[in-house]
């Protein structure tokens, strides 16, 4: 049942009615695709692809495809399990009320079965066909996102997305492990970039979705510490992010193209974060947080795209480096 009140969409699932009558699913493929969180999956695939391609080894295209597919399916499994566990609070937030479970298209047990099946097959396929370092890391990533972040941290502490951000930062590490069978400094640098990118990105979202999170009882930083403290944290984390993202160039891990791009993009992030910190009221404040949220997505894509360009140019014209 969907209620529309004052422009706000709230979905209410009548679980008792669902339990009394034998329920025959009308969920179509699109509902199951929605359970995979396709937009998150796109970011995971892209960052994993970068992790795979910057590895200093030749990976057969079939193995590369297998690795990326398994990581994508593993990310999708995490999304489905996250939606299974969070269906109660999803129904209370306008941003998530249209997800398949709150809408009544997919039942929680169906989502749970779907998620566990995909998680099992993605981990086993990656382990058997590629290597078990990557398989184990993918299993850990899914475990961390579902159990540590979704079940433990999210409803317990305002630091939920800081610690939980590790799950989102692991895909390039898994991909590197798939290519090399081991770990090194480069994938850990990619991990750190995504890890420090996560708080400013999600706190910007939480600032303009504060009422949603408060209604659902999720202790996001703007709910527990207030908007001003969140603005300060966004600025501080952005400073650390820009420094961490720039460091690989002077340290000699990534090239000059990356270094210059990270400076330019980092300048943009800093400017927008400072704007969020300064503009605290009214429409201007809302616009500033939305701008930072939108630009943070562009920032991460562009930063990782620069690494891809470096790899391609290095392969095409080795004498440049």
């Amino acid at each position, binding site marked *: 049942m969907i209620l529309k009140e004052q422009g706000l969409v709230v979905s209410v699932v009548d679980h008792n009615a669902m339990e009394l009558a*034998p329920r*025959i*699913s*009308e*969920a*179509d*493929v699109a509902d*199951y695709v929605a359970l995979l969180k396709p937009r998150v999956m796109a970011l995971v695939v892209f960052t994993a692809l970068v992790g795979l391609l910057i590895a200093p080894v030749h990976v*057969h295209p*079939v*193995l590369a495809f*297998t690795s990326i*597919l398994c990581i994508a399916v593993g990310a999708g499994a995490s999304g489905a399990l996250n939606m299974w566990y969070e269906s109660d609070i999803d129904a209370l937030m306008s941003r998530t009320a249209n997800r398949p479970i709150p809408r009544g298209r997919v039942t929680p047990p169906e989502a749970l079965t779907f998620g566990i099946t995909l998680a099992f*097959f993605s981990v086993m*396929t990656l*382990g*058997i*066909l590629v*290597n*078990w*370092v990557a398989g184990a890391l993918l299993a850990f990533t899914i475990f961390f996102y579902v159990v540590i972040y979704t079940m433990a941290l999210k409803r317990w502490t305002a630091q939920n997305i800081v610690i939980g951000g590790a799950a989102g930062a692991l895909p390039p590490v898994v991909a590197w492990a798939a290519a090399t*069978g081991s770990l090194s400094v480069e994938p850990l640098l990619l991990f750190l970039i995504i890890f420090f990118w996560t708080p400013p990105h999600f706190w910007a979202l939480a600032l303009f979705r504060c009422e949603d999170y408060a209604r659902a009882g999720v202790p996001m930083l703007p709910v527990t510490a207030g908007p001003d403290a969140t603005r300060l944290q966004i600025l501080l984390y952005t400073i650390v992010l820009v420094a961490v993202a720039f460091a690989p160039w002077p340290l000699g891990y990534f090239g000059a193209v990356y270094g210059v791009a990270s400076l330019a993009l980092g300048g943009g992030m800093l400017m927008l974060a400072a704007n969020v910190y300064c503009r605290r009221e009214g429409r201007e404040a809302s616009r500033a947080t939305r701008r930072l949220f939108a630009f943070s997505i562009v920032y991460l894509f562009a930063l990782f795209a620069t690494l891809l360009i470096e790899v391609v140019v290095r392969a095409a014209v080795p004498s440049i480096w």
Partner: protein
Amino acid sequence: MDDKQEQKGIVLTEAQKKSRRERSIAIALALAVLVVLFFAVTIVKGPAVLMRPM
């Protein structure tokens, strides 16, 4: 409800039949992809496919 209808059990609506068919096709395609993937990797790796580096 008379006996005839009871014996029929649960009767699916057209929408339920359609969505079940869609889901069945998706599962079949996913299994086919898995089979092709295992076959392709076996060809690519050759005998090394039996080696499982930790």
